[in-house]
């Protein structure tokens, strides 16, 4: 069973000697030079990984990471320090370091800490994978290996791994609020190499979420492995992708990476507070086709990007970002919400206690439209159909973004035809979203496989999208071809 917030508070007090009184003492040091706000982010994370390579277990790994990150806020400026030593003495030293951001001489008011009560039910799971014996995990990896090898004779290598963690966070703030959360995370990965007539092609697949072993009831190791194998074998037949600007149909699910890059990062409020995003000062303006509605939603049950509370202790919820093409809101953390004079949106996240929080996405998706997905393909004379991706990136300031397609096909005369080799797509956020000319009724969230990087910090996220038609995007293939048709 996962732990309730009260259980986590109890864990810190009994196992680590961190209780309300200790926190009050550290907060007093943090505010010793008169900072306007201080926060303690305690983290206790146990993680494990098991890697299976060439039909045997290659390595087992476990790690314990614990510590506290202390942030003192003074205006828009922050002081930050962390320590792995949770003695009150060491924590007070770190607090005094963080306190130097403020220049007053007098301490703030004493803090009276009270545990907040709330429902923490977005990933209340019965069987965390971290509690499962290693032999059972090895059995899952073996099943994946066998299934991938059995998929096709050309599958020459299979690598699989299972990575999981349980994180207990405790956040105590100088406004007296104390919140705790237990956050499980599971990920299963398979990588396959197909070797045929000396030609090698590879593919990866996997999934997971804030889930326990029941994940595998719906996503068997065999199905994940066969999907990786299918993509690798498919690549053996792939042709060179075309070069130029063409209509693009994005399949439901993983294509949500388009949103993550095209608008997600640009709507994080830190960039907009600084006016360095191409979406700065555009609330209420049209930034996309009327067909486009985008939501960032931390509440999705068991999803990789979900959280009960954010890493600043705010309740995380569902936030409408773009409504029928109009920019509705940014994703806020504490500092930016004060700057904009709006309520925190629960998007303050961080990689670990060693990092200061900033506005981040949780699960970001486009709502379903009314088109039949097949019709969207039939509307294209010549273009690209994209199904699987390896990653993406965006330049926040000029809005250019890319994503790399690892399973793509040509669309010719309204039909999906030949698979194409790995290809990068590049576009500009508002431009591409204004070219969304069809949205399917088939919204799908990706399986939990995405990790988002920003300013050197990684956090787990979810993405989702229905089948979408973009009338033109630049396709970075090698095959010169002119005469792209518009949809």
């Amino acid at each position: 069973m996962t732990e309730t917030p009260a259980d986590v508070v109890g864990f810190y007090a009994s196992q680590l000697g961190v209780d309300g009184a200790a926190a009050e003492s550290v907060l007093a040091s943090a505010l010793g030079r008169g900072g306007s706000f201080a926060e303690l982010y305690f983290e206790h994370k146990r993680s494990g990984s098991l890697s299976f390579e060439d039909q045997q277990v290659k390595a087992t790994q476990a790690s314990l990471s614990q510590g506290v990150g202390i942030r003192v806020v003074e205006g828009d400026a922050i002081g930050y320090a962390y320590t792995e030593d949770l003695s009150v003495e060491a924590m007070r030293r770190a607090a005094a370091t963080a306190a130097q951001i403020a220049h007053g001489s007098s301490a703030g008011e004493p803090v009276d800490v009270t545990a907040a009560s709330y429902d923490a039910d977005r990933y209340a799971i019965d069987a965390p994978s971290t509690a499962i014996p290693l032999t059972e995990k090895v059995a899952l990896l073996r099943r994946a290996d066998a299934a991938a090898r059995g998929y096709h004779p050309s599958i020459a290598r299979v690598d699989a791994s299972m990575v999981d963690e349980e994180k207990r966070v405790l956040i105590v703030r100088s406004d007296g609020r104390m919140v705790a959360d237990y956050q499980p995370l599971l990920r299963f990965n398979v990588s396959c190499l197909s070797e045929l007539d000396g030609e090698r092609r590879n593919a990866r697949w996997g999934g997971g979420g804030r889930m326990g072993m029941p994940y595998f009831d719906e996503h068997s190791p065999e199905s994940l492995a066969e999907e990786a194998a299918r993509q690798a074998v498919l690549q053996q037949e792939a042709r060179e992708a075309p070069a130029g600007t063409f209509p693009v149909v994005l399949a439901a699910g993983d294509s949500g990476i388009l949103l993550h890059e095209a608008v997600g990062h640009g709507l994080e409020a830190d960039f907009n507070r600084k006016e360095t995003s191409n979406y700065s000062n555009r609330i209420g303006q049209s930034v996309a086709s009327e067909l486009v509605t985008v939501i960032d939603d931390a509440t999705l049950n068991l999803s990789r990007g979900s959280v009960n509370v954010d890493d600043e202790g705010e309740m995380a919820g569902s936030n409408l970002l773009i409504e029928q093409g109009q920019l509705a809101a940014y994703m806020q953390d504490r500092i930016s919400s004060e700057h904009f004079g709006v309520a925190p949106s629960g998007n303050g996240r961080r990689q670990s206690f060693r990092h200061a929080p900033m506005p981040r996405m949780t699960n970001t998706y486009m709502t379903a439209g009314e088109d039949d997905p097949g019709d969207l393909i039939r509307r294209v004379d010549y273009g690209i159909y994209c199904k699987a991706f390896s990653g993406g990136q965006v330049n926040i300031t000029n809005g250019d973004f890319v994503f790399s397609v690892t399973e793509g096909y040509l669309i010719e005369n309204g039909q999906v035809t030949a698979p194409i080799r790995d290809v990068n797509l590049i576009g500009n956020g508002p431009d591409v979203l204004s070219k969304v000319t069809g949205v399917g009724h088939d919204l799908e969230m990706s399986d939990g496989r995405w990790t988002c990087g920003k300013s050197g910090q990684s956090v787990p996220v979810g993405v989702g999208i229905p089948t979408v038609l973009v009338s033109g995007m630049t396709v970075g293939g090698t095959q010169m071809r002119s005469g792209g048709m518009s949809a």
Partner: protein
Amino acid sequence: MAALSTEPLELAARLLERAKAAGAEMADAVAITSTNAATTVRKQQIEKVSESTSRSVGLRVILGGRQATVSTSDVSDAALDETVQTALELARVSEPDEFAGLADPKLQARETPQLGLFDEQIPDVDGEHRLSQALACEDAALSADDRIANSGGATFSTNVSTFALVDSNGFGGSYADTSASMWVEVMAQEDDGSLRNAGWSTSERSLHRLDAAEDVGREAAARALRQLGAGKAATCEVPVVWEPRMAAGLAGIISGAASGEALFRRSTFLADLEGAEVASPLVTIVDDGTLSNRLGSRPFDGEGVVTRRNPLVEAGVFQGFLYDSYNARRLNAVSTGSAWRSVGGLPQIGSGNLSLEAGQSDPAQIIAEVEDGLYLTTLMGFGINYTTGDFSRGAAGIWIRNGELAEPVQEINVSGNLLEMLQRIDAVGSDAQWFGGSSAPTLRMSRLTISGT
């Protein structure tokens, strides 16, 4: 500094002793301490000040070829004992691997060469210095031109670290190193109010080798300004000139493809090509972990093996792969001193300093010889398939017309296959520059596909 350099070694030794006493026949332990301090300013105001010291340890045990690694940031005696017990339990349920093991003691370092990795000034750098450098860097960028309208901020950071490794064959060693870095990002404004951003940075082991704060700031400003008015290019096949920083990235890709682990997995386009001409004869790429003062240098690798110079490509001919001990054993090769180690997990293969060596060409001439082509200054995204060598990435730069840098371009894509791209290198400049742990000059590829309008 004496306390800092010996403490991790003692901690690692303590962990290893406990593991041996508990029955680990073969084991090694790593301890790392790191003190990092950074100051960020934006628009000449302090945005963030941070300073922390971190310490963690990791243990690897090998029981009859069954391998497990465990790390912890809690270094209390109780936590070390728990680490040992967990490692033994995990190893027992792991599976035997005949190649699992420690480094060959004959390859391990007997002494610690002086590589100039530690600048005595850096531990004494205070917050005032970091602040003044960050301010000066950003100020130089902001005041370079009236069109520099906004800033992503400037950061100055310092780091002091100690890495210690002990193993059950009797190896024990540690070294301390320092680094200092500065980076800045600014935005130039178009007439319509939209912004073009660019950043620049410097990173070195010692303070006095850093580029001057003002130079870093001015370079960032110049790069943002030259992107003003950028548009898309038409889809075409043209010569592409890689500026030195981009060429250094290319060397990094080749080094990644030269990983012995990737060879074992058959997931590199360089598989089976040792001794083959994989690039134009103008191309020489060397990995070297022994260069004085460089960020990629260290006296021994993550398994205690002495670091060395490893030619990767010499005059276009692929010389061989980089190995840690494990992959060397299973591929019948010898460790190249290329194991990198954090406290958690197994050693991973990586390069030391990477250098794409300077050629004979005048960089201005390399551009002047291009009638119609791209000067590449930015690459975006992860579009590299190491198995096939397919390369397709977002790009920006400056279009070359009649031998001159003409108008800026963005939102384009460059693509090719790396093996073909390397063969198409037809000019290598004499202007090699260092960027942290890698160095490269300007180079030109005779033809790449550009996707645009």
